[in-house]
């Protein structure tokens, strides 16, 4: 599996993401926001967490207009795999690759803690390493993780089995407890919790490993 991790000014989970991908066996390259194209033969693009462009205007809004994001959208439209975590999820909704938007947490607080998530579908490369209804524990660290989507959009992602993860105890006010959503072709995943911060015993938990290993297995099989 060849993976590219996008780096914006203000990204701060980019190297964690690279470490997690490499630990799962991926060949990882970092790509800078000013780059206009992905390296050749990339299977997976990871958009990491952080505070791209200082979260100015809206979280992810400026990053979504950067040259590399056009390449991310092209990659997704060619059927490539994309994972966006935390700020990366915000960026992916701003590009329109994923539906909905991330708003300020309902209690207005920055939430930084481990949370239990329910895997809602194992029918995706990202969640194939889990069973449906498995509970996993990943950290969250966000101020704007309150997932918002209109009723029509919600009905659609439910009907299409595109809710990847929900919170066991909703920390931020997200509609239908949604923590992660898939694109229609199931190859783009956005999620607020951080699987890359749960891949080493030193992190306090390793529940995230199965996500990266599952991805790797799917890519090798493909």
């Amino acid at each position: 599996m060849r993976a590219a991790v996008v780096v914006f000014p203000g990204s701060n989970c980019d190297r964690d993401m690279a470490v997690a991908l490499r630990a799962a066996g991926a060949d990882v390259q970092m790509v800078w926001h000013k780059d206009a194209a992905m390296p050749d033969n990339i299977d997976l693009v990871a958009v990491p967490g952080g505070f791209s462009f200082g979260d100015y205007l809206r979280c992810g809004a400026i990053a979504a207009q950067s040259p590399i994001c056009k390449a991310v959208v092209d990659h997704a439209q060619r059927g490539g795999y994309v994972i966006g975590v935390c700020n990366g999820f915000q960026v992916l909704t701003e590009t329109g690759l994923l539906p909905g938007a991330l708003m300020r947490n309902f209690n207005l607080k920055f939430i930084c803690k481990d949370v239990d998530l329910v895997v809602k579908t194992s029918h995706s490369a990202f969640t194939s390493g889990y069973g449906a209804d498995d509970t996993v524990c990943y950290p969250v660290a966000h101020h704007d993780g309150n997932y918002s989507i209109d009723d029509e959009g919600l009905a659609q992602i439910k009907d299409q089995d595109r809710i990847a993860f929900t919170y066991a105890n909703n920390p931020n006010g997200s509609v239908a407890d949604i923590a992660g959503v898939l694109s229609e072709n199931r190859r783009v995943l956005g999620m607020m919790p951080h699987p890359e911060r749960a891949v080493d015993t030193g992190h306090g938990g390793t529940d995230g490993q199965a996500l990266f290993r599952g991805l790797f297995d799917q890519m090798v099989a493909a």
Partner: protein
Amino acid sequence: MKARVYVMLKNGVLDPQGEAVRHALGTLGFDGVQGVRQGKVIELDLADGTSEETIAQMCEKLLANTVIESYRIEVQ
């Protein structure tokens, strides 16, 4: 020329910040504040002759996230 863009959360989208401000006004003793909506004002200094249509494109592409926000343009 100058233009002002008002960006607000759409009606029906819960505004947690506005709600906190409403609560704080009540705490200060201002009775009867039934609702507060918080938004953004963006002032644009533009080349003369910039059309309202161009400003609307700026709003659609960047200044507002039309999934959750509405905008209003005021050319001055």
